[in-house]
């Protein structure tokens, strides 16, 4: 039977299975290969908080979505065109989101009476025809085929069955015409000490590929052409990894020692893991006894002249609040990364949300302003981290960098930057030359940035004391003077405002005035950009503005907002940036607020925009 090849612009695939089925790994390999092929891509891992929920249960379903395209794309896709469901629970959880007319590929062997019952199916959906009217359904006996392919390797049936994800991967590689060699190489390295496991997985993957090639079930292959990306060397990058590299770059460029203190918490822990593996760069990591010790140790290191960074999520940021206040008072450089997750309280630890913005802005006692910026994409986490470090040191202030679970675990192709091309990051510690009549004024300030001198222990002549009690202007001595307190509150606020001098003019996507401005911050940038493109393509007078810094806001933001009849602010929270915008500019902005632990889809943004402007 002949096979046809069809060219498509973009595809969204979702791999779903039990937590133990290796779906994140399968998705990861498909992603790496797709990156090498040269497509633009965006990924969205979605896994349960439980380490290992009961096998076959709905709670234990883990999924990984990838969108890849021959065009420039901004999101991991709204609805999957293809769902790979490794068991009934995975089908049950994800089937309703598949595009009508889409493809569902199932491991038929996993649809046992027990698994069907666990997933809440009364009849087998692969046999009862309920899916056939809506989808193209492929039932493949994956478990059986990997058992046959590997029967002579002397491995236990259980271990052999674990290779079924590579069967699925091989099948998808065939359908989308991707090479398998890089995955074979990767297996060889990953299981270097277990050659039989390498062999079993390669056989499973080959079996899947050949199944597509030789059976008559799959008649069509699809190709997705290379995306037209700017020239350069690329790699695929995950947000937390990019962020860690940004911190390392900041340390190298500034010649400061990097001290990272933190306490393990989902989804921020990977930053701790990543930096801990880079000891050869001299990076010091400190797994503290709790979140508070994580940030306070970092503050001690910052006092001593290191580039101090901590990262956390959700409840962790609440615990760090008091120390951030101290950093504001002590005017020491510090970067606090908040990988936002669903809240409140423990909330949804593995799901994404943008609901800590107001906490970042205002969540400390007293008037404690600090700069807040947010990464827009996984790759942008690198640049945002670098920028956060640079601003923290230049202005001698703690900086909050907001990312989120979607950015932290999501990935995209990333043009590898040259360290030499990054903005200058020069640091000088104060020395005896700063003394005025033999006196060290620890709270004297740079005229432009209002930064105070960084005078580190070990510097003769600059012995001085700082602390959380209000400081006297210039001397830094304890002061309860009313006018001094008012002046210092004002000065700390002005220092943060001065950071806006760093920003160039805001870049609007679309016209500078019109019917609607979609305003975004953080990880919703991609969905807002996709929606804006679609709306503009359909002739709507819609523009998009993404803001990187929420504190301070760009100086030209007010002038931009008033040139639009409507302002729409999509956020994965119950309305946070919108409160700031309305409060700051008296603009009647409208919100699109979804708090489902998932990225907002560009379709929903388009719908909200159309409702607003008709």
């Amino acid at each position, binding site marked *: 039977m002949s096979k046809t090849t069809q060219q498509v612009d973009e595809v969204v695939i979702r791999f779903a299975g039990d937590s133990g089925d290796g779906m994140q790994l399968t998705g990861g390999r498909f992603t790496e290969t797709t*990156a090498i092929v*040269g497509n633009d891509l965006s990924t969205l891992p979605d896994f349960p908080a439980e380490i290992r929920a009961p096998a076959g249960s709905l709670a234990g379903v883990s999924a990984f979505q990838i969108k890849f395209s021959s065009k420039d794309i901004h999101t991991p896709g709204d609805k999957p065109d293809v769902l790979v469901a490794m068991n009934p629970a995975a089908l049950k959880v994800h089937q309703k989101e598949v595009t009508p007319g889409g493809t569902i590929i199932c491991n038929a062997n996993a649809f046992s009476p027990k698994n069907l019952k666990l997933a809440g199916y009364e009849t087998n959906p692969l046999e009862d025809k309920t899916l056939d009217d809506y989808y193209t359904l492929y039932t493949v006996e994956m478990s059986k085929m990997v058992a046959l392919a590997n029967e002579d390797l002397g491995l236990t049936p259980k271990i052999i069955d674990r290779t079924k994800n590579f069967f699925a991967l091989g099948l998808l590689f065939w359908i989308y015409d991707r090479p398998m060699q890089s995955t074979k190489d990767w297996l060889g390295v990953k299981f270097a000490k277990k050659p039989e496991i390498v062999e079993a997985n390669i056989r499973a993957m080959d079996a899947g590929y050949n199944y597509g090639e030789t059976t008559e079930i799959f008649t069509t292959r699809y190709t997705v052409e*290379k995306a037209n*990306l*700017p*020239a*350069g*060397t*690329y*790699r*695929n990058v995950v947000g937390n990894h990019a962020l860690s*590299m940004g911190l*390392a770059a900041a*340390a*190298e460029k500034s010649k400061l*020692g990097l*001290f990272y*203190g933190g306490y393990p918490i989902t989804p921020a822990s990977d930053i701790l893991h990543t930096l801990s593996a*880079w*000891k*050869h*760069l001299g990076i*010091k990591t*400190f797994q*503290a*006894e*709790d979140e*508070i*010790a994580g940030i*306070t140790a970092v*503050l*001690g*290191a*910052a*006092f*001593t*002249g290191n580039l*101090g960074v901590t990262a956390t999520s959700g409840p962790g940021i609440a615990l760090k609040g*008091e120390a951030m*206040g*101290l950093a504001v008072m*002590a005017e020491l450089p510090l970067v606090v990364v908040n990988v936002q997750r669903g809240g409140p309280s423990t909330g949804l630890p593995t799901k994404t949300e943008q609901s800590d913005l107001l906490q970042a802005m205002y969540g400390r006692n007293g008037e404690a302003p600090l700069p807040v910026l947010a990464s827009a994409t996984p790759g942008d986490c690198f640049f945002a981290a670098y920028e956060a470090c640079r601003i923290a040191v230049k202005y001698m202030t703690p900086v909050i960098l907001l990312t989120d679970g979607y950015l932290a675990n999501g990935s995209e192709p990333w*043009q*590898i*930057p040259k*360290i030499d091309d990054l903005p200058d990051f020069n640091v000088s510690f104060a020395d005896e030359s700063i003394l005025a009549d033999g006196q060290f004024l620890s709270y004297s300030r740079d005229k432009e940035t209002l930064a105070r001198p960084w005078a580190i*222990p*070990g510097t*003769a*002549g*600059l*012995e*001085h*004391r*700082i*602390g*959380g*009690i209000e400081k006297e202007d210039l001397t830094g*001595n*304890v002061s309860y003077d009313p006018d001094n307190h008012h002046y210092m509150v004002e000065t700390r606020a002005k220092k943060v405002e001065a950071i806006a001098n760093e920003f160039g003019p805001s870049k609007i996507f679309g016209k500078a005035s019109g019917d609607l401005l979609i305003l975004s911050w953080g990880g919703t940038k991609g969905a807002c950009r996709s929606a804006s493109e679609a709306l503009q393509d359909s002739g709507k007078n819609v523009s998009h503005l993404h803001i990187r810094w929420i504190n301070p806001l760009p100086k030209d933001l007010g002038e931009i907002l008033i040139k639009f009849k409507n302002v729409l602010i999509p956020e994965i929270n119950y309305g946070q940036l919108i409160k700031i915008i309305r409060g700051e500019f008296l603009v009647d902005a409208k919100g699109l607020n979804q708090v489902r632990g998932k990225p907002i889809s560009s379709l929903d943004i388009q719908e909200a925009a159309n409702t607003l402007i008709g």
Partner: protein
Amino acid sequence: MSDTIKSYTKKDFTSDQAVRWCPGCGDYAILAQTQKIFPDLGVDKENFVFISGIGCSSRFPYYMDTFGFHTIHGRAPAIASGVKLANPDLSVWVVTGDGDGLSIGGNHTIHLLRRNLDINVMLFNNRIYGLTKGQYSPTSEVGKITKSTPMGSLDRPFNPLTLALGSGATFVSRTIDKETKHMQSMIMRSHGHKGTSFMEIYQNCNIFNDGAFSNQTDREQKADTVLILENGEPMLFGSDKNKGIRLDGNTPKVVELGDKWGMDDVLVHDESDYVIASLLSNMTYQPEFPDPIGVLYAVESDTYEDTMVAQLNQAVKKKSNGTVQDLLNTGDTWVVD
């Protein structure tokens, strides 16, 4: 850092800030002894860092003309850890109290001791909350009548020395605010110890808990109520050194030297013996025993910062000095023309 150590006097360690503890507070004596002995420690003063939390004792750094950081309640050990790890050459001192170090900051105290960073902890124990005006503390005795416990406190107290030993401390000592020479020698010993040194200082709060340690400081009776420890020496006390500590099986007993018990029966102090340190620490709060002062326990063990630096050096050696650009270029890459 310079090779030759500058010479200092007490004045060099006295800052220009007016000291603002209550008149008669035991903190004055501790500050004075610290300022007196610091010139003898053999460290350039720019290399001293004092870190404190919140409480009366935590005002201490403001009065020392060294680098200092008065931080937030209970967190001094964690901040000090960051200071030490950022620059292991510094001489880092934590000043804390029974509330700051054992209540709100108890977690950081035990973890500092467990990690054994070369940091010196001075815990001023006055068995009361002074700054907040007189509530009971985690070292107050059961039944203590305070503003927050009008019918007497219910909590059983911590024994700071036992807690330190249980946390894996490598150096545990105690002194008393009024024992000025002894305190100087304990500061010297703390400084000389490589690893976390934990020094409990009995400190009188003459406003909210006056006389908490009068049994141990009263001239008439202190010979009978205080056991001054000397390494390798028998544990003798009493005005004529006529009393001693003897082990009856595993149980310490107070014995009078005379016909029945002689010097050979008295336990000899061994700072490296954990069991002896444990026995000594548990004499606190027991009226039949004297309160031991001096070094209860001192052993050498790797410090956290030394092992951290060793790991960093090992990693550099193994991977050679990589650059961040190498890191960025790692993994599967492809070129778009």
